Every structure is written in C-alpha cells, then in structure tokens.
C-alpha cells in the first residue's frame, strides 16, 4: 500500500488562518450544538405527539398518527432540503424572504432534524404509555385527577422510565443523523471531514479521527443517560426493557 501517512497535517495552517485540527474542533462544536438543540426539540414535540396519540380524543390521535406517518416515511436528507429550499417558496413572500435572509441555517437544520426525530420519539413515548396497565389511568381518574394530571403524575413518569433505553439509542442516533445537516450548509463535523479530505486527501488519518470523535460523542450520551436511568430507577421494580 503506497499510502502516504502524515499525522502532521492536522497542525498545518489552512487558507482561512486556522489549523486543520481547529476545523475538527469547530466541527465537533457545531455537531454537538445541532444535536443537542434538535434533541430538545424532538423530546418536547415527540412527547406531546406521543401523548396525543394515547388520548381518548379521536382527532388528537389522528393528528399524531398523521404526523408520524409523514415524518417517518420521508428520508431525513429529503426533509432537510424541503425545509431549506421548498418551504420558503411556499409560505407568503415576506416570510419566505425572512426565512432565507435572516433565519440562521442552524435553526432550519435544528427544525429539520428535530421534527424528523420527534416522529420516532413520539412512537416510543406512545408505546411506553400503552405498555402501562390501563388500570393506572383509572386509578388516577378515580382519585379525582383530571386527564392531564393522570399523565403528569401517573403515566408519564413511568412511561419515560420504561422507554429510557429506547430514548437512549435515539439520543445517540441524533448525533449520527446530524451529519446529514452538512447538506444544508452547517459546518459540522462531517462537513469538515469532507472539506479536509478534499483539501488534503489524507483519507485514513482524518477518517480515524472523525470516527473516534463520533464514537466519543455517542458514548458520552450513552453514559449520561445510563446515569439518569440509574438515578430514576424505582426500588422493587424491574423495568428497562422498553419498546423497540
């Protein structure tokens, strides 16, 4: 293999004055920012949708189901392009111009990734709630809780505990999926990976470094949620095998 190894290039200066390793670091920063922000959006929206799909109200269920159907059945990359190129042309012109000129790309990317992931989280939250005995809801109602209170105090706390392992892999996934946001101009890790390959052609070195970086991100997330899981474990109860 006449491959020319060169680990030094990480410390070479690029034409924008930064060193290559600084590109990697800045990419890592954007990846983390996009992922965490999207995760927040996804958790919030996904929970709301998941809850909607378990209510007795038919139309709420229909809205939730439709959302999940739409957002799960179109590839993420296509969704990002839609948000970026198509949606601004469909809204009123003033708003379209605002979206194109003033709305940071970061926001578009976070919305795209967040809404996509929300569909998956909604599935999990729903299956978590449905896996609880129906009697739990009745017990809450019988004590005089409103429907919302049974969610707030009785069903959601258990449902989240049950699906935490599944949420953990979703949270790890979001770091990986965030790589696709390079396509809408986010200067995250995969963008820098491509950029560095193009500039230096030192494929192996940069692949090793970037792979490791993604690995660490996912691993940290995993440990973090494992800690949460441990902290919220209910004595005398065996949970931990949530829906897929």
């Amino acid at each position, binding site marked *: 293999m006449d491959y020319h190894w060169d680990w030094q290039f990480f410390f070479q200066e690029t034409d924008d004055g930064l060193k290559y390793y600084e590109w990697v670091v800045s990419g890592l920063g954007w990846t983390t920012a996009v992922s965490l922000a999207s995760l927040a959006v996804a958790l919030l929206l996904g929970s709301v949708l998941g809850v909607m799909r378990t209510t007795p109200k038919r139309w709420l269920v229909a809205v939730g189901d439709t959302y999940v159907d739409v957002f799960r059945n179109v590839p993420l990359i296509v969704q990002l392009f839609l948000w970026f*190129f198509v949606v601004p*042309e469909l809204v009123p012109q003033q708003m379209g*111009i605002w979206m194109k*000129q003033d709305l940071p790309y970061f926001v578009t990317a976070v919305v795209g990734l967040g809404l996509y992931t929300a569909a998956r989280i909604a599935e999990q939250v729903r299956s978590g709630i449905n896996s609880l005995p129906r009697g739990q809801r009745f017990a809450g109602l019988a004590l005089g809780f409103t429907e919302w209170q049974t969610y707030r105090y009785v069903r959601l706390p258990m449902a989240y505990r049950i699906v935490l392992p599944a949420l953990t892999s979703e949270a790890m996934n979001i770091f990986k999926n965030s790589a696709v946001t*390079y396509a809408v101009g986010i200067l995250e890790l995969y963008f820098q990976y491509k*950029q560095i*390959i*193009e500039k230096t*052609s030192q494929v192996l070195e940069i692949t090793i470094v970037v792979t490791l970086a993604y690995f660490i991100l996912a691993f940290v997330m995993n440990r973090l949620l494992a800690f949460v899981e441990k902290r919220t474990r209910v004595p005398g109860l065996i949970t931990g095998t949530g829906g897929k």
Partner: protein
Amino acid sequence: QLTGTLQKIKESGTITVGHRESSVPFSYLDADQKPVGYAMDLCAKVVDAVKSELKLPNLQVKYQAVTSQNRIPLMQNGTIDLECGSTTNSVARQQQVGFSVSYFITSVRMAVRKDSGVKDIGDLNGKPVATTTGTTSDALIKQNEKGRSIDVRNIYGKDHADSFLMVESGRASAFVMDDILLAGLIANSKNPANFAIVGPSLRDEPYGVMLRKDDAPFKALVDKTLVDLMKSGEAEKLYTKWFMNPIPPRNVNLNFPMSPALKAALETPTDKGVE
C-alpha cells in the same frame, strides 16, 4: 517496456475515464445520461492516441462518475486512469496527482442578481456570499486589492447548483466561483436575464486533465495529444462547439467567448499550476 498507467491499460485492456455529472459544459450528463462536454471530447482524442500507441484498436473504454471529493482518491487508488472534468491544476494538488497541460483558463468572479445592486466587490461588505464546499470566498476576496477591507459572511452550498440557488432565491448576495461555471448555471436557470457575472477576476485558474503522479510516459502521451489539438486549431473548433453554440440537453447557448488568457494558453501550452 511499459510502466505505470500505460502498462495497466495494456494489461487490463481497459481504460477508465473519470467524468463529472454536472460540470457544464466540460463534463456532464446529457439527456441519455451519457457523459459529454468539452473536456470529454478532448479526452476522447487522448483515448484514441492511447489506442494507437498501445496498438489496441479494441481498447475498452469505461466511464466512472466522480465528485469533487473523490476524484483525487480515485485517481490514486487506480479506479480511474484520467479525469476529464473541471479540475484546477494547483500546486497543492500536484503533491497528490499529476496534470496535463491546461486546456482552459477560468477566472474566479461572482454571479449576482441584477436587481441586487451588487456591481463590484466593494458592494459586498457585510453581505452573505455563497461558495461551494472546498473553497473559501472570503479568503479570495481579501486577496484582492479592493476587497481588503471587506467583511463577508460565508455560506456553503453542498455543490454549485445549491450555491447558485442561494443567489437565485435571495439567500446570498453573490456566488463566488469560476466564471465559466457561473455562466453555465445562469444559462440553465429559469430566467437567465436576471443574473450577471460581475467584478474583477479574483484569481485565474488553469484546468487540466488529471493523471496519476510521476507517470511520465503517460503524461507525455496525453500532453502531446492535447498540444497537437491546440496547434492544429482543432481545440478552438471544439471550444466553439461547446461554448458558443446550443448544447444538450436543453439547447442552451452559453455565449462565452474565448478569454485572452485562454488564447495565450492555447498558443503556449503549459502545465504550471496555481499557488
């Protein structure tokens, strides 16, 4: 005794030509998804030369689409034997691959919407400027005398079409790129009259056929073929065919006359790369 690429071609009985899929009019797919273009025509001549050199009239020609990210690795690892696209011959790239004599000289300029009021670099201060991944427009702008005090916001399209779309849709005030590519994009847009290529040349860049590094016999063959075409006037005919006439797939005419720099390059062919 053959060596390098020629030996590989002889042994395998095939030559693999790397091409781009949307570098109009150098190398792109026509309506039947076949690679065509100015660079493809030039390369066809090179392939003919290889056939007669190796006495392989039945040499099999394979085409392999490449992207700006993978063209260099693919050349290095032997997937392609020559690349006919719109690849700038730069000193940095010469560390990795070889180049033929230049067959085109492009100037880095900018495309703007006519109604945007941007006419020169000076108008860009504080504005978003689109570039395609791999180049940094602010560095180029700053290299220019008039652009020294200018601050722009870089935004990145994943490819030229995306970058151009940013200008078209009003996301970016300008798209800084090789002028010929800008001309191609404008000609293909819905309303070509809305756009203009403006400003001084930020940099001149030569395009060359990409080869493997340190493969003198093959490079000599390629260079000789190209130089012959330039000397015989054949190259200029091909230029007219692709740059001054309607081209497939939609019969758009780029109307892009030969620049003085290119005329000079065809008269005195060179494989010197830019810094």
